[in-house]
């Protein structure tokens, strides 16, 4: 597996190492999945990164700052349900921190509307439709393999090639299927939902701000 970034970010920086390439990709492809439902019209709440971190009660919990240059190209998807975006001076909602109480109702509405949006439903469907059947399949395949050792020892003993018998072949296949499913899952996530999820993440955070 190739390593995209080999150097660790500097001390204290909270560099989101995949935000930059993804944001650049969004800029070059304005028709990326979450943008389809975008309803432009809300001003893009761009603030300098310094002001944002100054307003945040806990700098460590603040979301990583996306490249500011990329922001105007990608207007946030604001579903019509949301009446108004929180004023830019409000601190970003940090759940579980005491600051969350300030705009609880606002953030609840934002989350509800994002959850109802088609973009989110797409992400959820592509995640669940891959993960649930696959999990069932590999758990079933593993448990069948373990049960077969107990239930059908005769079959497991029958020789296949050289000193290998059925039990060894099935065991090595478990290794192979684990590696294969890992690769398939990563490919599915990378191609089907990563970009859409990232776009929705910035949109949601913009609305929460």
């Amino acid at each position: 597996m190739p390593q995209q970034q080999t150097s660790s970010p500097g001390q204290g920086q909270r560099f989101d190492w995949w935000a930059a390439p993804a944001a650049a990709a969004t800029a070059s492809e304005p028709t990326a999945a979450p943008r389809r439902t975008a309803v432009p019209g809300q001003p893009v709440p761009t603030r300098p990164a310094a002001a944002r971190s100054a307003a945040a009660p806990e700098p460590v919990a603040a979301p990583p700052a996306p490249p500011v240059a990329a922001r105007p190209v990608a207007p946030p998807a604001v579903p019509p349900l949301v009446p108004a975006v929180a004023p830019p001076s409000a601190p970003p909602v940090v759940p579980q921190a005491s600051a969350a109480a300030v705009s609880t109702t606002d953030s609840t509405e934002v989350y509800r509307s994002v959850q109802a949006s088609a973009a989110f439903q797409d992400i959820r469907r592509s995640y669940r439709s891959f993960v649930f059947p696959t999990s069932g399949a590999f758990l079933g395949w593993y448990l069948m393999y373990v049960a077969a050792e107990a239930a059908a020892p005769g079959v497991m003993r029958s020789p296949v090639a050289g000193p290998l018998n059925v039990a060894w072949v099935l065991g090595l296949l478990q290794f192979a299927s684990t590696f294969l499913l890992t690769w398939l899952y990563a490919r599915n996530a990378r191609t089907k939902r990563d970009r859409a999820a990232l776009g929705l993440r910035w949109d949601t955070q913009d609305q929460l701000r």
Partner: protein
Amino acid sequence: MTATTGVLTTATPPPVAPAGQHHGLAIVLFAVIVLVTLGITLWVGRQGSAAEDFYAGGRDFTPLQNGFALSGDYLSAASFLGVAGLIALYGYDGVLYSIGFLVAWLVVLMLVAELVRNAGRYTLADVLALRLRRRRVRAAAGGASVVVTLLYLVAQMVGAGSLVALLLGTNSAQARTWTIIAVGALMIVYVTIGGMRATTWIQIVKAFLLIAGSVLLTVLLVVRFHGDLFELMRQAARHSGAGQRYLEPGLKYGATFTSRLDFFSLGLALVLGTAGLPHILSRFYTVPTARAARRSTMWAIGLVGGFYLMAIALGLGATALVGSAEVRHANAAGNTAVPLLALVLGGGNGSTGGVVLFALISAIAFATILAVVAGLTLASSAAFAHDIWAGAWRNRPGRRGTERTAEKPSEQQEVVVARFAAGGIGAAAIVISLYAQQLNVAFLVGLAFAVAASSNLPVLLYSLFWSRFTARGAVWSVYGGLVPAIVLVFFSPVVSGSKVALFPGVDFHWFPLENPGIVSIPLGFLAGWIGTLTSPEPADPDRFAELEVRALTGAGAA
């Protein structure tokens, strides 16, 4: 357990009765490892002492680094020495173990890693608390995490005691006792001074050493057999004392129906337990994004899988070149199979190569033990300070205001408590380990996995995926898995009624299996379901919307 005390047919002269010199070298290397890890702790520990540094290592590790750290946390001495030893003694049945340990990572990768990274901040209970804002949920999940890590910790320290004593060539009770105390003291130092950042770096160094040592031995082994792995298997079967049965299932677990059922129970616990281990889950908070968490899990799967493939080869090699009888003679559980194999591969007893390789592998095993106990202590102290103390105790009703508006302790206070908790939990683990020295290490690890799968996994999966899940369901699910698991073990042959039991003199066992997973895991899921159905208040759809959006998109992630 079928004994294979067959004819003693070793390929080489017995490599036992080690001369004093390779223990001398081993002691030097042990000291080097202690000094290097302490150096890392002191150096890295100065880099920051905020809660984010202590619990999550500043969240700026790369996927590759975290992948190494994950496999370092996961590949305990029980894996390195235990699995290879089981294969050396029981052939195919040892292989079964390693497969359960590996397949479990698919659960982590697909269902847990990314969502937990997005939805939580420091611990497992954070994910639940995001949705079910109840003190009781936090207390239950935090308590279960402490129990799981403590069980796992005791397993590692008991193993460390016997192992280090064995590697140093003494088998006295005093050596074991002092080893446990020293390992415990070291882990307290690592965690209290270095926090997550130092622990992670120790895991990375250890995982690198472990993989490098395994690769070195495997290459030497394959060269020895001229690349003919079938010949390796055949020679292993010849020198196992069991013949062809060595390569077939059933040598260890095939005797009775009960023992087969026990193995199935263990297999279930292994595959479902990993995703509920607190020290594995907290590793996902050390990377910046969910995608990084996914990529670190993929690295871990590659490293763990490759390691287990090598462990199979090394186990076979130990049988082929050392002989099962000799391995068993050196240690009844087979724990010294790999060091003995290293001695033979390096040129045999008395040769410089053999001595160096033996000392090197022993030192790697020692580093493995130190790193794993440090990771466990950290996870345990985080669960105590963040969930039980700050989340549940300081937040209790009657303390200024209601649950939601109560003044929370500052994160600085929390970290101070966590450092003290690390000391307290470490001390408790030392004391328990001293009294639990006769317990079987593999059993304790299997039990920790069973408890994690019964109490932590159901509540985590329900919270992430079931929209109607309620706070009562969460509490019931944690206790509904935890309590049966503990109770069944108490009434199992492990505690009473057999010669190797904790209390060999009495017999009050009625549960036939050693591993409770096959009963307690379904009970955990069932209790969560019933608790939700009987809940007086319905689930809050707003909270679930927040959890779902945050978990899948990463919005507002810490």
